[in-house]
């Protein structure tokens, strides 16, 4: 077994033995139950509304909005999990004396870091995909419809969390645990603001605001991936319904593209390389 896999397995074991999974699964079940209740109520209310509201597809609007809400919650919970699994991976563990016995072993530091990345990614990707699937199914059961795209937004969500893990690991090389945790949530918050700016820019037809939001999303491509995922949920919504979706908090005018995918992959490589170089040069 390669050193990276040994460490990844160790991270998975830690997640199981420290009951991370138990807590995460229990709280996520509570979230899904609450979400299911709200979704059922929303569709029940929708069914009491009188039909014939022009071209508005209320069922479609409710479906993509609710899945969008679920997707946001999934990204948020996935981010919390990702940050807590990696926030102190290097400096934090070194300060506690956990890292030194591992680093003096023959494997390279890059392999140890890759193992931490692989372990955290394994946990978080499985988690966000499972939660996202639950959200989709809850909305389908309650409303009888699926969003326009399912796989693409799910992949975008998983990719977004993977980038967040890489950023958190890079932060753990450079910052203390507390500073890194604060930095990660501030970065996450800034990205959310960019998403809202994009919605406002679209509503006001302000090219400047949209450009700012677009640039922030590119600087933090997990947000661009999330926006692309939201866009995919309502990819086939047109007319008034499409407009309403895009103006809502869980709509997005930013479609995914090959360019974004390539940039996200390059970004991940750059962040990972910086983390590896930083870790290799750090005195422990």
């Amino acid at each position, binding site marked *: *077994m390669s*050193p990276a896999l*040994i460490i990844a397995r*160790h991270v998975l074991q*830690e997640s199981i*033995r*420290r009951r991370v999974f138990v807590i995460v699964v229990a709280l996520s079940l509570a979230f899904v139950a609450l979400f299911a209740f709200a979704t059922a109520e929303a569709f029940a209310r929708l069914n009491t509304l009188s039909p014939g509201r022009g071209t508005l597809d209320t069922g479609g609007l409710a479906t993509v909005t609710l899945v969008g809400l679920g997707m946001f919650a999934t990204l948020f919970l996935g981010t919390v999990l990702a940050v807590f699994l990696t926030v102190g991976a290097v400096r934090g563990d070194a300060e*506690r*004396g*956990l890292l*030194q*016995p*591992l*680093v*003096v*072993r*023959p*494997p*390279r530091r890059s392999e140890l870091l890759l193992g931490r990345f692989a372990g955290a990614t394994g946990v978080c990707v499985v988690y966000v995909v499972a939660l996202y699937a639950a959200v989709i199914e809850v909305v389908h059961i309650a409303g009888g419809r699926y969003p326009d795209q399912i796989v693409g937004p799910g992949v975008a969500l998983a990719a977004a969390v993977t980038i967040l893990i890489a950023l958190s690991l890079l932060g753990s090389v450079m910052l203390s645990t507390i500073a890194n945790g604060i930095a990660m949530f501030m970065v996450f918050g800034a990205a959310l603001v960019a998403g809202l700016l994009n919605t406002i820019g679209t509503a006001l037809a302000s090219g400047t605001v949209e450009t700012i939001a677009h640039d922030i999303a590119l600087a933090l491509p997990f947000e661009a991936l999330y926006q692309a995922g939201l866009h995919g949920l309502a990819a086939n919504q047109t007319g008034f319904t499409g407009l309403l979706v895009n103006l809502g908090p869980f709509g997005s005018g930013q479609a995914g593209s090959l360019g974004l995918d390539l940039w996200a992959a390059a970004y991940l490589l750059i962040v990972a390389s910086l983390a590896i170089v930083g870790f290799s*040069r750090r*005195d*422990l």
Partner: protein
Amino acid sequence: MSDTAAVAATALYKRYGSVTALAGVELTVRRGELVGLIGPNGAGKTTLVKIACGLTRASAGTVTVCGHRAGTAPARAALGYLAELFRFPGWCTGAEVLALHQRLARSTGGASERDELLELVGLSDAGERRVETMSKGMQQRLGIAQALIGAPPLLLLDEPTSALDPAGRRAVRELLEELRTRGVAVLLNSHLLSEIELVCDRVVILSGGRVTAAGRPSELTRAGGIEVHTAAGLRRFPTATREDAPAIVASLVGEGQQIYEVRVVRSTLEDVYLEAVTPE
């Protein structure tokens, strides 16, 4: 000869900003040799050990471990290390900690190696105990067992007995003597001078980032004269040697003195240490 040494440091410098932790250290630990590294806090002992095991990079100079540049994979494969401040994951059992390090060290010893090491450090019954339920002393012994995984030819031990009770310290001393018989070189960083004096072949005293004294304990300590307890009180003969004792006793008896005790005085390692680390 440095390429055959277990550890060889040459003109070693380490600076942290404006602070110089090591200022041209020259040190050799031969294979199978047990060397004690002593010095006051901030002398650079831990920095030296960390550079040898690749945790910290030198600002200048070189360190080799069994002929390999310190920090490289072959150098790290040749050593076992116990940090001064270390911790193992609390959720792991002792055996799991050792198994993880066996995998990383590519040791093929399996369960028999784990059992042997746990027995060697007196933790035979604690292998399935979680680290978080172990006392500090038990964790330190587990740390020593971890350092011995893969039977490395060099051990770097940074304060290995700091959390141990007297019985535990004695057990570590016996373990070090056992390791010497197996040809394992040990660089032992400790504040416990009596311990160093008891087990080490050589002692290196580090102060202000420099080696201020080095040699066998018997070479470092020196004759301190002869003390004679008589009925009239203590008589000191500071320049006398062991060979002078019969003549001194005969002379005193000739003077009518009653002799109760005769002691050949040698300076202790503590005296040597204090002399070496005290600024002139």
